[in-house]
């Protein structure tokens, strides 16, 4: 299907067929059915035009969508990041002021200007990525490995694990705020019955609020479990047999057979986890709201421990109406996401084995 057209130099009928339904009007052939080089070139170009025309047509929905809904907003937001814009009046050009404010460089009106909670938001976001992603990988992989053993009932378990991950993040957050309420929630009530345990304040204590989000996140790990299960089951049995003959124990089996062959799966879940982590929003919005004592103007309660980057950006854009500054924050987020993904991709060559199955 590939380069036949180019490679063969276009034996007439083949080229016409590969290009599409409407047969090209073939120029006159000589008695042997051959055509001159020019004619061949013209036929080739027509075929190519037809092919690219078809491709353009088929791709047109995405192209239009990309230009209108992605590219244009991106360019506009880049422009805004250099302005002060509150949506009520026209954007006012301020050059690098927004970026200076973000990183605490320079002054505005003679006062040293720095966004007080920018680094808090960055730190919180990095925290949830650094702790949340490995936890998710380990838990999903471990549970999936358990699921490879039994011969019966795996369907039922699989369903049970997968179902909570399909719950809306808002609902899940609300449930856990309720479950982890320090006094009325069942978790602390049960924990309180065990002597000697100091029941934490979960979402209400800045030291335990992010770990509470991790607990919430573990509830939704079911979709990763399914992926790992599929990956584990696709490891060829022969490899296990081969290594068993050499007398390997469980750990060696895991390290030398299982682990290398599921590295693509691990890589995939890490990359998706990091990308999602940068945009963490729903759960923090709901949980911080619940804890703030009814004043939803303060996001990220308690004490900004749940102030994630996405949440903070939302506050600047839709609470303070500083659209210019919010755009600057958005572009920094984009840069960070791309950098992280690039780093992951580049380092993946060293440890990811694309065995490609059989």
């Amino acid at each position, binding site marked *: 299907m590939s380069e036949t057209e180019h490679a063969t130099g276009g034996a007439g009928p083949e080229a016409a067929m590969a290009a599409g339904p409407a047969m090209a009007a073939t120029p006159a052939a000589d008695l042997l059915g051959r055509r001159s080089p020019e004619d061949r070139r013209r036929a080739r170009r027509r075929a190519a035009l037809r092919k690219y025309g078809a491709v353009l047509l088929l791709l047109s929905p995405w192209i239009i969508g990309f230009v209108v809904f992605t590219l244009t907003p991106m360019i506009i937001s880049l422009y805004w990041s250099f302005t002060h814009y509150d949506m009520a009046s026209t954007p006012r050009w301020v050059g690098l002021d927004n970026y200076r404010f973000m990183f605490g460089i320079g002054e505005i009106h003679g006062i040293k200007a720095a966004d007080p909670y920018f680094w808090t938001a960055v730190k919180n976001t990095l925290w949830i990525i650094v702790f949340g992603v490995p936890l998710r990988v380990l838990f999903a992989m471990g549970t999936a490995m358990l699921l490879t053993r039994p011969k019966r009932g795996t369907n039922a378990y699989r369903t049970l694990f997968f179902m909570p991950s399909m719950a809306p993040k808002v609902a899940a957050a609300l449930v856990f705020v309720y479950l982890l309420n320090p006094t009325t929630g069942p978790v602390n009530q049960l924990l309180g019955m065990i002597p000697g345990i100091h029941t934490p*304040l979960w979402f209400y204590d800045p030291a335990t609020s992010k770990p509470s989000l991790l607990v919430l996140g573990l509830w939704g790990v079911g979709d990763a479990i399914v992926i790992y299960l599929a990956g584990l089951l696709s490891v060829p049995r022969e490899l296990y047999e081969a290594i068993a003959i050499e007398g390997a124990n469980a750990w060696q089996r895991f390290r030398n057979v299982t682990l290398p062959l599921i590295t693509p799966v691990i890589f995939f879940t890490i990359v998706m986890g990091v990308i999602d982590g940068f945009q963490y929003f729903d759960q923090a919005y709901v949980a911080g709201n619940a804890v703030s004592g009814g004043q939803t103007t303060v996001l990220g309660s308690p004490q*900004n421990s749940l102030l994630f980057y996405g949440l903070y950006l939302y506050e600047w854009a839709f609470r303070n109406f500083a659209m210019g500054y919010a755009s600057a924050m958005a572009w920094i987020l984009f840069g960070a996401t791309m950098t992280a993904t690039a780093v992951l991709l580049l380092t993946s060559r060293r440890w990811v084995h694309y065995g490609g199955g059989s």
Partner: protein
Amino acid sequence: MRRPLLVIAVVAALGILVLAAGCGGSTSSSSPTPAASGTDKTPVTLTVWHPWTNPEKKVFETAIQGFTQKYPWIKLKVVGFPDSSTFDQQLIKAINAGNGPDVAISFAPDYVGQYAADGLLLDLQPYLTQDNIPADEFAAAARTYTSFKGKQVVLPVLADSYGLYYNKDLMAKAGITAPPKTMSELMADAKKLTVRNPDGSIKIAGFVPLEAWEELDPTDLARAWDGKYFDAQGQPQLSRDPAWANALTWQKQLVDWYGYDNILKFFSTYTASEFDANNAFQNGKVAMVFDGEWRTAFVKRYTPKLNYGTAPFPAADTMPQVYGVGRVSGTVAGIPRTAPHVGDSWLLVKYMATDTDFLVTLANGLGNVPTTKAAATSPDLTIMSPQFKTFIDVWNNPQSSYSPPLTASGAGYATLLLQFDDKWVAGKVPDLHLGLQQVDQQISNQLNLVAP
């Protein structure tokens, strides 16, 4: 062949960019002439946005029927917003998108400054003048939060004032005969009234000093020392006005006495119930609380047998002259600049702000303070009670003020102090003065950044 693709893309993007950027910020013309008052009586439907939730929502909907009777050609589509604390932001976003209502009612004047500076709501002064409504129609305190830099963008529709509620039974049990008048007395009483469980946790709290607790705000504490947010030049002075340091120190002392973890745990148990039947004060779990006048209506509805009293919030020991001053606020109504039928919208706003029957019905149902003299002196008012009188007095006190002060950028800056206070009471701020200086700086920065 890929080239044409790219060319098309870039051209399209630039084209849309030009369109989009050029469309930014269509400031509408100044307020239409007063001649556009609804004189043509053509049938029209007005959309009204408000943030009341049940049961208060039903009270409003019943009371507003008087308007439809008086102006039968106007139908009302009343839309309730469940989340009142983001109401203003949502309204601003909607008006900017051309999507606003005909009349908007907001619980708090936080953003009146922004409405005025950005021209999001119409200046109503021309209409007031045209309809001969005198300047003193509304109580003096109301005018401090309904206009900004000369633009009267909203009218008050009932008001709120704040003071101290105290549980008489619990006080009697602790041997306290009168409510505290000074901050030292408040602290001492709070300690006496607190009852602890055997394990040290709080069973009944005397007074919860956390800023996230119900209506309390650091500004209310600072008001006891006559604290002012901004100086004469409009610069924040939290670090220069000693009232703030005094207030925050007082606050932390009480928090430390409770034990931060204990009071936090107590907070987490009851914070969700501020506005329902399980309210901590109504159920005798908190002995004294800073709250608004509507609490009297809530008590009547949920726990009518509660033996309670009200008094102005205490003043600093060194400033007895401040006693009787309190925070005031109020529901406000205005007309978005995008409203198509300004004349009819004005009739509704005028009705809600000045019609005595409506105000009295609403006040009786909501338990709010009437904003016009006629309504306040009406014989049909049923809300008057010994407890309610405190709030009328606070309302009439000329020193009572609205906080946070109005700015052209709305009230977003006030969050900075709240965030600081949360850290302060948790013991995370080693140097209070330095911390307050930083907050001052942050507020200045934010106001500069957000200024159009």
